[in-house]
């Protein structure tokens, strides 16, 4: 088990971005230094007796307190969360100000580069990072780690409209190319992210690709279908409601291939990153609709 820390930390900045998005920066050196790509945090809004549960948040970035730079993470002090206001928890988060205290349990879960994922990943010669909407938040750390080990990925990012294309500039130093898509055509390709992705896969049909994907269930399902069609392995970062993040409430379990009690795995503990072919997607869709 990886080391996790549960401490009260201080908000450094809560910067509003376009389309109802925010970038929350917390001063949390222990959590920031322990974080690995694809892991998440449970964020606790303190002092509220009506909103009890912590919120699961992908770890967007970790960085040093002052100067920017490459080797920053060894002395990382700041942990960042890119989020969109969608409900009560995120609305309360958006009201946080510099100096406020929040509870932070992190890092949690199995990220993208855990040992059991590497066997198949090692064989790839193209890495495709595929994000839908706020799913972008889970992909910056893996993009950076890949780049640092000499392998630049390609980013495919789809959102509803121009205002929801956030964070792209943060990816620029770490990816070889970026393809954008918006449903209303206000930026990049018109339509879903699967359009530019399908075109790329068709053009590079002979290459061995590995896909890392995060986004809404319908988007993930479409991406996985494409990956399967072209015979590429695909790692997905899953979302679900979570009660604890510690693996005890069993609230975030999703249906996977397996028998008996192994047919359900916890997004917080066995995930959030899974091989796509392990997940029973029909049931995942139903769950999201509910």
């Amino acid at each position, binding site marked *: 088990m*990886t*080391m*996790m820390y*549960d401490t009260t930390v201080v908000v450094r900045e809560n910067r509003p971005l376009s389309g109802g998005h925010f970038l929350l920066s917390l001063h949390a050196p*222990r959590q920031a*230094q*322990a*974080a*690995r*790509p694809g892991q998440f945090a*449970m964020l*606790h809004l303190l002092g509220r*007796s*009506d909103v*009890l*549960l*912590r919120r699961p948040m992908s770890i967007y970035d970790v960085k040093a307190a002052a100067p920017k730079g490459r080797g920053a*993470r*060894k002395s*990382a002090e700041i942990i960042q969360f890119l989020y969109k206001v969608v409900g009560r928890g995120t609305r309360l988060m958006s009201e946080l100000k510099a100096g406020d205290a929040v*509870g932070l349990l992190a890092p949690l879960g199995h990220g993208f*580069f*855990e*040992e059991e994922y*590497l066997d198949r990943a*090692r*064989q*790839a*010669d193209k890495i495709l990072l595929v994000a839908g909407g706020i799913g972008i938040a889970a992909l910056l750390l893996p993009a950076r*780690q*890949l780049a*640092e*080990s*000499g*392998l630049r990925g390609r980013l495919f990012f789809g959102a509803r409209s121009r205002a929801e294309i956030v964070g792209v500039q943060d990816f620029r130093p770490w990816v070889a190319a970026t393809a954008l898509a918006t449903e209303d055509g206000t930026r990049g390709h018109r339509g879903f992210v699967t359009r530019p992705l399908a075109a790329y896969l068709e053009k590079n049909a002979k290459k061995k690709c590995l896909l890392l994907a995060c986004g809404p269930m319908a988007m993930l399902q479409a991406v996985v279908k494409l990956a399967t069609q072209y015979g590429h392995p695909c790692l997905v970062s899953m979302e*679900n*409601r979570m*009660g*604890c993040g*510690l*693996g*005890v*409430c*069993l*609230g*975030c*379990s*999703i*249906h996977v291939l397996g028998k*008996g*009690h*192994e*047919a*359900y795995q916890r997004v917080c503990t066995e995930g959030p990153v899974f091989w796509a072919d392990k997940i029973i997607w029909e*049931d*995942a869709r*139903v*769950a999201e*609709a*509910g």
Partner: protein
Amino acid sequence: MRGWRKPDKGLGASIVLRVKAETKQVCNRKAREKVMEDSSKTRRSGKPSKRSAPGGNTHASDQVSASADEFVPRLEVTIAGIHFENPVWTASGTFGYGKEFAHLIDLNQLGGIVVKGISAEPMEGNPAPRIYETDSGMLNAIGLQNVGAQRFLEEKLPFLRTLRTRCIVNVFGFSTDDYVRAIEILNEGDGIDAYELNISCPNTRAGGIVYGSDPKLTEEVVAAAKKVARFPLLVKLSPNVTDITVFARAAEAAGADALSLVNTFVGMAIDIETARPRLSNVTGGLSGPAIKPMALRLVYQAARAVKVPIIGLGGIVTAEDAIEFVMAGAQAVQIGTANFYAPDTSIRVIEGIRDYCRRKRRHVADLVGSLKVA
């Protein structure tokens, strides 16, 4: 693909390990200091033995004989013949099998751990969504997902055995035979201190009537379980009944050594955008601070109806909450939903109870049922 060989390079893997080692040392030192501090407070010396229960909740005079300024409140309680260092336990389904919290709190400080409900066979549970947050509470319909009795003994119990903390195993089934079978398997376990019978399951043979909502079924399953149980038997009552005293008496008559109350209140929530229920199971159990006043009322009523000890739970977050349950008649309390978002709740509650007792110059046992009703 050179870059893949060392996935942690560049992310400070060595730092993680070092921090981990340091934290462990700190934790161990703290734990040791705590043990020493505890033993100096009580009349036992050294590490208290899990098996040999000392005087229980009778008040030894040597404690009180210390000078008035140094009043040392006694938190320990004896329930069903089992000695507990303090009256604060973690509730079933909110604390896994204990180990999940080992990084976060000192488990040895807890009075007891009630582990996630165990059935004779493993269960896979309900489809998602299984939980939904409501005002000051949460709904859950997990569907009793668990590893089954045999794997619990092999994989989970060995760790729990290493703790000083009492281990209570929550047991459930869908027929009386299921309950009996689960207990028969668990009887082989070394390190279990008691069972807590979850009778909130529908009896599949009796047409899905919930055991805990029919006094006859309650009596039947408790009697059958008591007959085979090698360890003391607690029965966890459902609050979803018209008169809790009928069920408390039924369980007592059938041989229950103690009663835990309450389990969750059945509730539901609807997403009006999609006109669908928020839980795949449509209804679920409501827990958290929202249910505390109702749970407290039920503990109060049950405590006046039976002689066996009562363990109170339902929305406890603070020491004040816990003391309310004790005053209403509970000899011990369980912390549930709060474990999800504040894993140190039990520790804070224990400290808060200690402070209160010191201030009031009373032992915990003196507070049980001390509510003054004019």
